[in-house]
């Protein structure tokens, strides 16, 4: 049998997706279903004086219209929607119910709900609901929030929600800056991003009146977390709730939440005894689904005369939006540990203030805090290189942890222990692939010739925190849950293998990868492995998929469950072969007796024997059904080097990405095909932040670009093919040596692209440009620089 692990195996998920057979939430029908239509506030901040639902109630197909106050009176909720990450004991957390009653705090907040027979009728009736608002002053940006001129919640005296600090060595930081030969300060805006998974979120809750239970299909990354949270906030028994994430069309963090619509569908279906459903429209998603990023960053770097880092100091003003959702306040903290990047930084300090605004809440979006951190330190390193007068690669080399050599279990200034790293060769490989010398020569040629299209080479060497997370580390951060993952491997009587995972894939190909892990371990055909997931009745134990955790925690749990399967099977085989268990060798799916090549049993034969239970060791339970819950001892820290080659047209300001080189290291790989896909997609999402995307708001908190007409998700036209390669530095955090790769591309790419643009424009004296670097913004920056020069 050829090696399974590390081979580019085609995905078993694909045929059903390619033929349209798969069912997303909106594809599922339920007899007697009612469509929810949401009446949403057009104002960012307003008093709700009254609602007249009568005109809507008489519309065709309308079953009921409930105002926020009526819904509250129905007693649907035991508690507000949850925030699982109260980052400080005194964090301000205004109650966030699925509907507003007296006051709305962002555009799109729900004030009333229509239930109708069809989606069209629900939409029509929403139009007829009359709401009397009295507009209040809105906080339309984090800058406005800082002034407290208006407060996002009228009963708050300040917009500040919390101050969180990570200052392990404040004296050291002060000394570093006092003794520095060079300091640089970068102030960056991480603009708000609309996650825009291609499948809009949707939900369908189906009560079973006779069983007293309720099933909710929802487009989520986190059915398990949702089940606990729904029980806790609705008062419906956890044991009565079944959550199913059917085919899910991408998530990127946007489907890692507990949303008003989900709570409404569940509680209304439960109350009315009718299936209740809703699917967001794309434009609605700018208000009904949380957004990403939304931070003002200030990073200060102190270095000696050679550019060797002495200290890094960071302050963030983070835009929470109107409410704390599931992990809203925790997102900047996830980044806090990465502001020292891949560098040996003697002293580090980080503070973050969280601020309420009257905007859609922020929360996790691909990378969640870590792309922001990587961006800040990698931009600052380029600024430092310029100041010291050395190349970007040289400033990095001088500062790599471990001197760029291989290391394991290394304590870093941000208080974490990096599992493993080997940065030097990774950088070399990327520079070679990019043909850096040729690029620089071409850049010089264009500059000398005074060409209008300037070349820029942008470098980023990133590290990320994956494999969320050791439960005790989460406790230290005041996170309200653990970070383990569960996996079950059961041998079926016919020799097939059934795997149950607590991970919840939505494009990552876990069915394929988990099959490969099992096939490799048990010596069976990957096609004989069936992976069950994403349904709390089938997979009762799990903590789902986010934070590049699935392989490094969930996949490892599967691998370790396989070890338990082998252990039990070995005892059965030994018993049946009348051999000592220690005298059995397990290879390619067969237990053979050492020294007697003919004597042996296939694992499938053992499985059948375990099922019949005719001849088991005394006291052994029949069947082979092994569960492992893996709580990782440490995070995993993948890293990599990205090079963006950009062409900037100084006449139009347009940036073209000519080439993109990515050398990533995610430790050992299970399926390189899937790794590569994750890298590609991640890179384009980061490139999109650098060049195209950003949710724009006016000062009244109105989103100016909620639809795909104005919010520029890049198409195939805007991005190039990507050159990828890998180094392989196994993690010490798990027995498989794997790290995680879902967010890596995004974490490396925004900084690489902007570094490239700044490199292209350096002859004009440009040292920074805000994201997204639209043609207009680039052109204006060039003009301003020319005028200033």
């Amino acid at each position: 049998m050829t090696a399974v692990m590390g081979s580019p195996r085609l995905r078993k998920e694909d045929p059903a997706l390619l033929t349209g057979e798969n069912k997303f939430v909106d594809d599922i029908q339920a007899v007697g279903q009612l469509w929810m239509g949401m009446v949403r506030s057009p104002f960012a901040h307003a008093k709700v004086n009254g609602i007249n639902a009568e005109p809507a109630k008489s519309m065709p197909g309308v079953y009921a219209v409930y105002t926020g106050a009526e819904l509250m009176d129905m007693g649907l909720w035991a508690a507000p929607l949850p925030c699982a990450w109260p980052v400080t004991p005194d964090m301000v957390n205004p109650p966030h119910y699925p509907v507003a009653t007296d006051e709305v705090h962002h555009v799109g907040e729900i004030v009333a709900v229509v239930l109708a027979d069809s989606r069209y009728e629900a939409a029509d009736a929403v139009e007829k609901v009359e709401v009397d608002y009295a507009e209040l002053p809105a906080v339309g940006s984090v800058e406005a929030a800082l002034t407290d001129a208006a407060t996002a919640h009228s009963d708050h005296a300040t917009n500040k929600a919390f101050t969180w600090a990570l200052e392990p060595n404040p004296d050291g930081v002060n000394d570093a800056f006092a003794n520095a030969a060079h300091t640089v300060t970068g102030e960056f805006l991480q603009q708000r991003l609309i996650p825009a998974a291609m499948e809009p979120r949707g939900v369908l809750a189906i009560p079973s009146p006779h069983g007293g239970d309720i099933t909710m299909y929802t487009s989520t990354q986190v059915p398990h977390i949702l089940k606990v949270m729904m029980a806790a906030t609705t008062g419906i028994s956890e044991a009565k709730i079944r959550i199913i994430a059917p085919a899910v069309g991408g998530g990127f963090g946007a489907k890692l939440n507990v949303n008003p619509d989900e709570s409404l569908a569940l509680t209304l279906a439960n109350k009315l005894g009718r299936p209740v459903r809703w699917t967001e429209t794309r434009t609605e998603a700018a208000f009904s689904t949380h957004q990403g990023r939304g931070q003002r960053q200030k990073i200060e770097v102190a270095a000696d005369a050679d550019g060797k880092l002495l200290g890094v100091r960071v302050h963030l003003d983070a835009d929470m939006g109107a409410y704390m959702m599931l992990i809203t306040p925790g997102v900047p903290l996830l980044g806090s540990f990465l502001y020292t990047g891949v560098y040996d930084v003697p002293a580090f300090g980080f503070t973050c203030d969280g601020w309420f605004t009257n905007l859609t809440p922020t929360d996790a979006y691909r990378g969640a805090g870590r792309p922001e951190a990587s961006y800040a330190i990698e931009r600052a390193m380029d600024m430092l290189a310029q100041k010291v007068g050395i190349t970007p690669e040289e400033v990095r080399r001088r500062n790599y942890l471990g001197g760029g050599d291989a290391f394991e279990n290394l304590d870093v200034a941000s208080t974490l222990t990096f599992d493993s790293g080997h940065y030097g060769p990774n950088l070399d490989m990327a520079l070679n692939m990019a043909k850096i010398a040729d690029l620089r020569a071409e850049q010089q040629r264009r500059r000398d010739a005074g060409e209008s299209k300037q070349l820029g080479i942008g470098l980023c060497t990133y590290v990320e925190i994956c494999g969320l997370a050791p439960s005790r580390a989460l406790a230290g951060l005041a996170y309200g849950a653990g970070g383990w993952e569960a996996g079950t491997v059961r041998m079926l009587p016919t020799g097939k293998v059934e795997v149950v995972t607590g991970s919840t894939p939505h494009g990552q190909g876990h069915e394929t990868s988990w099959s490969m892990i099992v096939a490799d371990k048990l010596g069976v055909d990957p096609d004989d492995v069936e992976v069950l997931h994403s349904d709390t009745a089938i997979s009762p134990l799990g903590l789902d998929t986010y934070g590049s955790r699935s392989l490094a925690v969930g996949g490892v749990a599967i691998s370790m469950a396989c070890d338990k399967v082998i252990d039990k099977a070995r005892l059965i085989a030994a018993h049946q072969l009348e051999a000592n268990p220690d005298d059995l060798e397990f290879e390619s799916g067969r237990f053979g007796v050492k020294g007697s090549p003919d004597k042996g049993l296939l694992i499938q034969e053992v499985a059948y024997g375990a099922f019949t239970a005719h001849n088991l060791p005394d006291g052994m339970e029949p069947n082979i059904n092994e569960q492992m819950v893996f709580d990782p001892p440490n995070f995993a820290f993948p890293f990599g080097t990205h090079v963006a080659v950009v062409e900037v047209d100084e006449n139009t300001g347009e940036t073209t990405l000519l080439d993109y080189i990515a050398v990533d290291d995610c430790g050992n790989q299970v399926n390189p095909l899937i790794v590569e896909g994750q890298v590609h997609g991640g890179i384009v999402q980061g490139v999109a932040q650098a060049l195209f995307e950003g949710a724009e708001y006016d000062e009244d908190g109105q989103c100016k670009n909620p639809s795909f007409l104005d919010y520029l998700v890049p198409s195939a036209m805007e991005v190039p093919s990507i050159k990828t390669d890998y180094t392989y530095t196994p993690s010490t955090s798990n027995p498989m040596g794997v790290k995680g790769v879902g967010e890596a591309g995004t974490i490396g790419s925004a900084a690489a692209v902007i570094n490239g643009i700044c490199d292209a424009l350096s002859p004009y004296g440009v040292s920074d440009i805000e994201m997204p670097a639209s043609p207009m913004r680039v052109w204006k920056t060039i003009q301003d620089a020319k005028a200033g020069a």
Partner: protein
Amino acid sequence: MQIQMNVNGADRSADIEARTLLVHFLREDLGLTGTNVGCDTSSCGACTVHVNGESVKSCTMLAVSANGETVTTIEGLASGGEMHPMQTSFMENHGLQCGYCTPGMVMASVSLLKENPNPSEAEVREGLEGNLCRCTGYHNIVKAVLAAAG
């Protein structure tokens, strides 16, 4: 109102509201849920089907406008249990992850090659401009289309 059309080789008729979009007719009246909806501004192409062999965004067309026409959806692309070469090429080149954009992307790619059997990489990228994918970064989609072109 009453409409009839040939969908994936079968004559289908139904009584629908005049404002029903083709995509909703296909999905909700005929149960052909392979065609997806990704936006409300004709921007994403998730809903791409073929009407009389031409690629059409079925969210931009009323079902009544397709009255009497021949429609092919993703469910009609495979034949005799065999996937269409474009579907196979997407699989072989890992041109899909979550699969939500995929039916539209495959339908658009099939008609792209019909119009231009030997496209360059740039022509593929341009030809798929109306179809958004959030997962793949397009690299492997472009590779799949080029491979299918042979």
